[in-house]
């Protein structure tokens, strides 16, 4: 989906508004990732799932599907009680995408 299609799907919002929302999403996700890591370290998986879920929804709404899918994979790993190595790998994957695209 190209940017024009995205803007159209979102109700023909101006490109500047979309760019601003994307920028806010990345800024917010930096804080969320820190929070998520803290929840994982403290064994508070339910709260960590909630943060990953929120990131998934936010990026899906903005049609940034690669980031949304990475957040979704992390959410699934947390929900399924995956080993810490897998969770670390999913967090790293999401973190890299956020750095690359943000």
């Amino acid at each position, binding site marked *: 989906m190209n940017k024009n299609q995205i803007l159209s*799907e979102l*109700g023909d919002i101006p490109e500047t508004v979309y760019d601003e*929302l994307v920028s806010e999403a990345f800024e917010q996700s930096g804080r969320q990732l820190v929070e998520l890591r803290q929840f994982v370290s403290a064994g508070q998986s339910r709260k960590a799932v909630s943060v990953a879920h929120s990131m998934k929804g936010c990026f*899906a*709404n*903005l049609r940034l599907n690669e980031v949304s899918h990475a957040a979704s994979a992390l959410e699934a790993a947390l929900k399924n009680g995956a080993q810490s190595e897998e969770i670390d790998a999913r967090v790293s994957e999401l973190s890299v995408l956020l750095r690359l695209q943000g």
Partner: protein
Amino acid sequence: MALRRALLVEDDFVSRKLFAGMLRGRFVCDVAGDGLEALEAYNLSVKNGLPYDIIIMDIGMPRVSGSEALMLIREAEAREGIKSGQGVPVLIITAHKSAFGESFRAGCDAYLTKPVSAESLLAKTMEVILDREGTNEQKHPDS
């Protein structure tokens, strides 16, 4: 034509702005960041005699979830003698596909899955509102 009133309940700040933008021009939109704020806004709207035409709500939210808030709204309506299916219409927007059963048990009228397009949000919102208005006109033809 007077704009309709909507309460938009979404904990994610960016999504909230996005959805509010989609509704702009058709609705006067109040926003709430979780179920507790939604309940406060709902109670205030009732107290002020300015009921919402629709509540558009996420499910997974901190403090009070969307389904918990919805159940409390339906309980408040029942105490006021408002029958099931005649209260404020509620449209659920969620990325939790598994939450639909829970949402309908709590009393929602319709749902959409994220990601949501402006077209589908406006179409579903109007469908739910018109459906409720039609139902209430049939029940109260003189009102």
